[in-house]
């Protein structure tokens, strides 16, 4: 398989993730988009690793690390969303305005 196929898939996934991150109002969907971005990056790394036939397998090692990191982040992220939801009864990211710059317009 040519290197280009997984790279294009990865680029596509990353772009979908970026779109989701910027366009979605629901916090959980934002977290999902971020997960998508991290998955795209992992695909990227593994593809390069196989293409380079790296002796140290650096790409695959980093991909494994990324999986672990993503899991930790999303675990904490959902816990924070849960606490936020309990307090504010909203999961829309636009409604979080307590900490924006004072005197600024929304």
């Amino acid at each position: 398989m040519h290197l280009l196929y997984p790279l294009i898939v990865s680029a596509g996934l990353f772009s979908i993730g970026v779109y989701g991150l910027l366009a979605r109002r629901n916090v959980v969907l934002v977290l999902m988009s971020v997960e998508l971005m991290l998955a795209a990056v992992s695909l990227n790394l593994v593809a390069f690793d196989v293409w380079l036939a790296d002796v140290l397998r650096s790409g695959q090692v980093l991909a494994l690390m990324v999986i672990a990191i993503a899991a930790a982040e999303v675990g904490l992220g959902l816990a924070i969303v849960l606490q936020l939801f309990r307090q504010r009864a909203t999961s829309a990211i636009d409604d979080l305005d307590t900490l924006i710059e004072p005197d600024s317009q929304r």
Partner: protein
Amino acid sequence: MTVQSITWAPLAPVLVLVAGLVFVLLADLMLPLGVRRMVLPAVSAVTCLGAAGSAAWLRGGPGPPGTFCSSPGSGSASRCAYVLGDTAGFLTVVLCLAAAAVLVLALAQLRADVEGVTPAGEYCLVLLAATIGAVIVAGSRDLITLVVGLETLTVPLYAAVAFRRGSNAGPEAALTLLVVSVTSTALMLLGIGFLYGLTGTMHVDALAEVLTAGGGVGDLALADVAVVLLLAGLAFKVGAVPFHVWAPSTYQGAPIPVAAYLSSVSKAGGIAGLIVVLPAVSAGSPAAATWIALLAAVSMTVGNLVAMRQRHLVRLLAWSGIAQTGYLLVGLAVLSGRSDQALSGAGATLAYLAVYVLMTVGAFACVAAINGTSDTVATSDTATTDTGRAVSEGPSVESVRGLATEHPRIAAAFALFLIGLAGLPPALLGLFGKVVVVRAAFTGDAGWLGILVALNTVLAFVYYLRVAAALFARTGAAKESASPLATTLVGARPGRSVPAAMGVLVAALALAALVAGFWPDLIIGAAPLLSPFGE
């Protein structure tokens, strides 16, 4: 297949921190609440001090500084993933000492938290875990280790920021931090992926070699893109403009010790990452120097200009921290430049980092001392305006007016730290830090950055002086005229006494700042890579 050999000695700081972390985890399960609140933070602080001590002792000591090394073969040198060299040792000492100071702040906060609203064990655990991440970043020579360290530094802080129970601000700040942080991680990993694909290696030294090899991979446009992505991820961590948007909100929503941690250890970890990565990466991408210089210039200016408008103390310190990031990046801009004084740019950044960390932890400690116990008080102190938006509680510039009459020493120490951040005597240490940075700029052919630093010092002085002057203002008519509503909103100052732990910490930091001002070799002289001109 040979199993990689591990040299345990250079890992001593990390091991000490891990041992402390495990102890805290177990003790949290076994100790009763009252004892827990005091013992756990104390033990954590001692652990950090121990880690700092071990790093100082190892630095320049016998034995190989590297660990997790690949076996040398086929003519190439042995590449180690974690090296506790001069720079890493210095950074580890600074990071651990700052973490210890923050843990003392946490101790004071937990002691005052009588109802046990904030979980003591998790609090200390999270801060220790983040410190481990920072220490790993400082010593990493390998992009994988760097990423792991950076994430270990960031992820526990999501929890730490959210620890402000009973207030709306905590989880919101944590969510801001989370979303921005994960995005930047993804971008950084994309950049690392491309770099890996181009060069075939993750090790920083090997990267430098491949990128500088003439006519090769370093000339591709993809290399520039990868470098920009990588730097963007790290720039988020240090809070450079335009990657700074998370900082003021997160600092304001977090408990004050966590805000102190973010502005000292977390930022220092980002700088450490940049120091690891920049020499190698800028070899292939000469534009890196320009990017960093631009980041520095814009951070300084925007940070200072917006800080002038701030009324909330923690937010003001957050924006001033963004400006200080600009000063820190000046040295790194020189580092990636082409002049023969390049390396001393890193030395200037390291020296200024030590000065900055001391002053900023001191400033936050004073804010915490002033704020007293209102951090852990459960909720009803959040008033709302008629539009339904919660007015942020906490210390403001108005609320510290005339502090000198009640707490003269805290006020004097706070003024000292603010003036140190501004870079003026009598906090001579701050002045020397600024001189070192300006000197690096001029000797590194980036004179315009030096001029910008000097001009920004004047800008910053306006708001630092405003706070310092308010501390010593004569009280009397001003206080009576404030409406009762204003006093509740603005945060009434609590009782007469400042918690003992905080008082001792503030005194120790102020003393260190004063002594190091008269004997600057103590701190600035310890920074590696600084060399007298012409060497």
